[in-house]
Each structure stands twice: as structure tokens, then as C-alpha cells.
């Protein structure tokens, strides 16, 4: 079964649409099942539970609509999802006041009681350090520690340079170590 795909700027190409569609659907579903729960958590931390549904929905709907344009590399595909989610969060937050933003972020953190992140950072000292981090540093830490992105992928997701990503991670680590020391922190997660 053939279809014609017309892409201005890219010419006209032919493709077997039905097999391609099935393959795309399978790949998308696999990616969705892998990352959606963590993406939802990341989004909820940023915009709050109430707004998370819309942001997550828009993120994955955009990914599906633009599936042909996503990177082939699996890690970069995940990073593309986070990058889009990050951008959708920023868009959602721009329409709110800073006070609302702050309150909702705080509320979101309280509401996510079964978050594995919270189990890891159950120590109040760690929680305070993380809460005191700038949003940029916190986002960087979160993506590489709890979302298993590489620093390069996290840099792509957050729209910063890899060098800036390394600086953010280094800064976050130093703050954590300064407050608790590496030995204490290791016990938190054990």
C-alpha cells in the first residue's frame, strides 16, 4: 500500500505507509512506556499536578505528530521528550505569576509522596539542599540522577551547553557535599 508524502523543502518521496505506521506506533509506545511516568513526575514538580496532565499530553502528542523528526538515537529520543516537556513547562509557567509558580512547585513536592526521588532524598537535610538549589541546577541534577540521562542528553533537554551542564552538576554536588559530606549522603540512599 503506497502513499505519497509531500514535504516542502524535501521533495516528494514514496513510502509504504501502513508498515511504517505500525513500526512507528510500536517504537512510540515503547518509548512512552519507558519514560512517561518519569516525565510526568518531572513535569509535576515543575508546574504542579493540576497542570501536569496538559503538559504531559502536549509533550507526547507533539512527539507523535513529529515522530519522523525525532533523533534516531534512543538516548537522544528520550532527551527530545524531556526537552519538549521542559519547553512546555516553561510556556505553562510564563502565564503565571512567580508567586503561583513558587507555591505550586512547593505543593507539588509535598504531593509526590510515593516518588522514588523522595525516598532517596528522605533526609530533611538533603531535601533542604535540593530545595535551595537554583532551578537550573536542580533540573540538571534531577535529569542525570533520577531520570538517567547522560550529561550530554540532559544538556540537550535543558537547552544549555554541555559545559554549562557540567558546571551545574559540579555546583550541585559541591553544595550537597558541603552540607552533609559524601559519606553521610551515601547512607541516605542505602
Amino acid at each position, binding site marked *: 500500500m503506497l502513499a505519497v508524502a509531500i514535504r516542502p523543502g524535501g521533495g516528494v518521496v514514496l513510502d509504504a505507509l501502513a508498515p511504517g505506521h505500525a513500526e512507528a506506533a510500536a517504537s512510540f*509506545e515503547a518509548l512512552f512506556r519507558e519514560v512517561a511516568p518519569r516525565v510526568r513526575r518531572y513535569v509535576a514538580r515543575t508546574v504542579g499536578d493540576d497542570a501536569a496532565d496538559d503538559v504531559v499530553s502536549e509533550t507526547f502528542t507533539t512527539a507523535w505528530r513529529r515522530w519522523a523528526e525525532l533523533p534516531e538515537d534512543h538516548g537522544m529520543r528520550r532527551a527530545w521528550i524531556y526537552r519538549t516537556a521542559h519547553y512546555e513547562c516553561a510556556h505553562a509557567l510564563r502565564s503565571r505569576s512567580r508567586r503561583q509558580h513558587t507555591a505550586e512547585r512547593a505543593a507539588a513536592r509535598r504531593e509526590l509522596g510515593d516518588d522514588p526521588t523522595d525516598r532517596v532524598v528522605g533526609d530533611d537535610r538533603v531535601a533542604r539542599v535540593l530545595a535551595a538549589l537554583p532551578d537550573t541546577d536542580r533540573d540538571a541534577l534531577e535529569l542525570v*540522577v533520577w531520570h538517567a540521562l547522560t550529561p550530554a542528553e540532559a544538556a540537550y533537554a535543558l*537547552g544549555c551547553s554541555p559545559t554549562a551542564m557540567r558546571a551545574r552538576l559540579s555546583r550541585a554536588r559541591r553544595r550537597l557535599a558541603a552540607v552533609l559530606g559524601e559519606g553521610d549522603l551515601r547512607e541516605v*540512599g542505602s
Partner: protein
Amino acid sequence: MSTDDDLRADNEARRLRTLLGAPEHAPREPLSTADEALLARILATPVAVPAEPARRPWAARGPARIAVAAAVVLGLVVAGISWQSRGTGAQAGPPPVLEFSAGTVDDALADTLPSARDTLTAISGAAAAQPATGGSGVQRIQSYAWYLNFDAARQDAELATTFTDLRISPDGSVVSREVRAPALDLHGDVIDPDRYPLGGAASVDRLPAGTMDADYAAQLPRDPVALRDAFLATDPQCRASTDDEERCLYYAITDLYGRAVVPADLSATVWAMLADEPAARTLGTTRDRVGRTGEAVVMHGPDATDALRLLVIDPATGQLLSWELVGTGLPGTVFDEPTVTSFQAITSAQWVPER
């Protein structure tokens, strides 16, 4: 970033994971009910299946970004025609072929039309005479288009009327809003008032900084030969044959006007470049789909699916008003007559203030 920097960043990440007792690989978690429902809802909609032989990186730098940006402008428009319907004599409802003052599409297919050199040279001159105007802020391009969507798996064809409002900010971030009318069948009747084409009744894509090159038009060469080289550098396949060169030049032009406010001096260069292409033939004047008078230039390609590639150009300003494609068939079938498979009329291209 150097390899050393990579290693240092990876080391920071590893130390942080160790500090916080986080696993190296995050365990898979089950989907919530809400996410299961979201997944089902998304998969119930069609998708733009990759059709190119080789993917291009999403955020590729340089020439490859052109193709990426083209996809951002219009997405992957899946268009086609149910050849079964046409083969059985159904009266399809695609847009009728435009009327031209100096020829017909049959003349174009027969390669009997005169060269467009003089026409394009005149248009280039008119564009060059336009006052030089710069722009700043957000580039906003609005268009009206009509596509044919064909789902091969379901043998389901629909006509999609699409309005697009594209905004490209100086940092390369993009907001693309599309509004679509309910889908029509091949007879031009509404299939179902609640059925909308691919993408739904409305969609908004917001893409982050760096997605597109906002300076693309500003940085293109103002020398026709150099511009031709720049257009052909977008894809190695463009140099494979004369047909490929013509195809790439046509789509590079439609891409340019579909995603940028094109300054007059660049328009002058574009048409001067195309004037030297033997494949560019003139059809005389025409009125495009939104009633504007322009000069029609056509390029006859070897493929049935876009056998005729049309451009309608404002002779006074050199701005591209519309493009459209006329096909003569699909693999395995031949249309009864040349058929318009898609068009886009660029209704506005202007700089607007940043919000």
C-alpha cells in the same frame, strides 16, 4: 566540549548518583491509568511516518537544518489520491487546475512552453528595485493550504483545508498554529462534521530555541550562483542528477518563502538564479487560490507524483504568492487527467514585535 570535558561531566553525574544512592539505570515503572489513556488516545491518531531514505538530525547545524526547518513549517504532509476511486471514475474533489494566460498544464507536460528566463529576469529586476527594508522581532508567516490525505491501510482519502500561522523568534524558537476544517471526501462533501484531518481541528507546536535558524534568509548569498550552490548543499542527493538539482531548487524556494520573511534583495537573487534554469518555463499570468494575480512558472519533473511544480510570483515585488503540485499518477496507476495534489498560498509574511 572536548572528550576530557565529557569524562568530567560523566564523572560528576556518577558521583552525584552515588551520593544520592540513585541507581545507574532507572527502573521501569508501570503506567498510570491517566498515561494508559493518553497513550491510547495518541496512538488512535495518524502519524507522520518517516519517508526519507536517511533521517536528518533534529537539531543539525548548517545545511541540514534547512530540511529540518521545512518539516517544522509544514510538518510531514501525507498526501495522496485514492487511485481506486479515480480508476472507477469517481469524481474527485481536489482543487481544479489553475487557468493560465499563456498555456496549459498539458503544454507543460509536453514541454512545449517557452523558457521563463525573460519573465523571471523581469521579476528579479522588479524585486531588486524594491526599497531595502530590514526587519526585526518575530517572523510571522501565515498561509492557506489544501492537502489530500490518504490512509493506505484503510483506503481512506480526505481533503484537508489547513490554515497555518508560523512564528519564528530571533532565538530560533517556533510556535506553529494550525487550524483545519472538517475533512472532505473526494467528492468535496464533508465526511463527518466531527472528523478532522491529520492533526485535528487545531494544533499548536511550541519548539524551543535553536529549532530553526531565524537568520536563514539574511545569511543566504545574494549572488545567484552562490545561492544555487547553497540550496543544493542541503542534501548530497541534490547533486545526483539534473532532475535532482531542479527538484531541490524548487523545494528550497518553497521552503524559504514558507518559513521566512524574504527581503527583496534575496527575492531578486532567487529569481535571477531560477532564470538560468532551463527547466523553468512560463505559463503566463494566473490568479492563485486566494485571488491574487501573479506570474506562473512551472518546472516539469520526471516523477508522476509531482510532475509539475508550480510557482506563482508577484511580478511587482518578487514575493512568492503560492506554490502547488500537479501529479499525473501514482506508482501502479495513471490519473485520468493532471491533478492538483496540494497547494499553499502564503497570505502574509511580516515581522511582528516579540510578545
